[in-house]
């Protein structure tokens, strides 16, 4: 899953623990455990990992995220133009995957916010909550009840029905 590039959303506010003065002359036992861990576990593991990375650096290769060209939509296809239908369908499926990932990322941000704030989440996470509500509502409106056999055509029909309902509501309101 592609990672969220926006690190600003996950920033933890700076801690406010006070600096304490040493009162006793007994050395901190944690430093002993830290040095033991360092020698027994940390150094061998980093040594092996760096050796592996040196071997891998000899055959370096890169991979990219594929960028697809935009093709005419299903609503711009002529009747009986099956090739146009096929391309529009493929584009719609890619767009649905992208939208699913967007919803997942927004949900992850809310989870990160909850983790950060702890007991203050009900007050401080309002923006993330609202963003998630909006995004899920939009997703539900567009791709919601299409079912497992939903394709670009059924989605277009759903949009048409939505627009008809909107127009009816407007006509009734005025």
């Amino acid at each position, binding site marked *: 899953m592609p990672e969220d590039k926006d690190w600003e959303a996950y920033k933890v506010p700076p801690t406010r623990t006070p600096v304490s003065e040493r009162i006793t002359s007994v050395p901190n036992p944690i430093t002993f455990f830290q040095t033991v861990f360092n020698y027994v576990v940390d150094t061998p593991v980093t040594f092996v990992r760096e050796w*592996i*990375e040196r*071997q*891998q650096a000899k*055959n*370096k*290769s*890169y*991979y*990219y*995220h*594929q*960028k697809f060209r935009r093709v005419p939509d299903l609503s711009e296809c002529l009747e*009986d133009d*099956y*090739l146009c239908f*096929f*391309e529009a369908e*493929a584009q719609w499926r890619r767009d649905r995957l992208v939208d699913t990932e967007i919803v997942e990322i927004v949900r992850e941000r809310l989870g990160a916010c909850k983790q950060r704030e702890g007991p203050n989440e009900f007050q401080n996470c309002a923006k993330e909550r609202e963003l998630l509500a909006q995004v899920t509502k939009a997703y539900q409106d567009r791709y919601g009840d299409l079912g497992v056999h939903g394709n670009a055509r059924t989605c277009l029909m759903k949009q048409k029905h939505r627009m008809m309902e909107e127009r009816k509501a407007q006509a009734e309101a005025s």
Partner: protein
Amino acid sequence: PVRHSSDHGKRMFIIKATSFYDTRFLNLLRFYVFLTGIPVALFITYVNIFIGEAELAEIPEGYVPEYWEYYKHPISRWIARYLLDAPEKDYEKEMALLYVEAKKKELRLLELDARRLMRHRGDGPWYHYETPDKNLVDNSMKSTPDN
């Protein structure tokens, strides 16, 4: 049945159900699984350590990546490069199939239309039936009216 005494108890002949078939099955299973499993595991470990996965990078300006450069693991890249067709080629193959089927559908509809119209209007090359020659018809019984 056990005689609980340390070192020198009575020697017992313990009667239990045979485990010969079970152990034979498990040994054979282990043998055949590891026969190809261990070389495959070693190969995959070698690939992961010495060749390593690809790193994610932005597509450089003016560069069009090959279709196998969209995968991370080196074995997936190798399979995409040497064993599979490019996804663009697959896409075009599917579209060619759809095009042929669409043309077939159009031609079939046209044929049905032509058949219907020619049968109805009778002015086309189809729906001509062999009728007997008019010179063979014997008009003698119709030539006198009061017969």
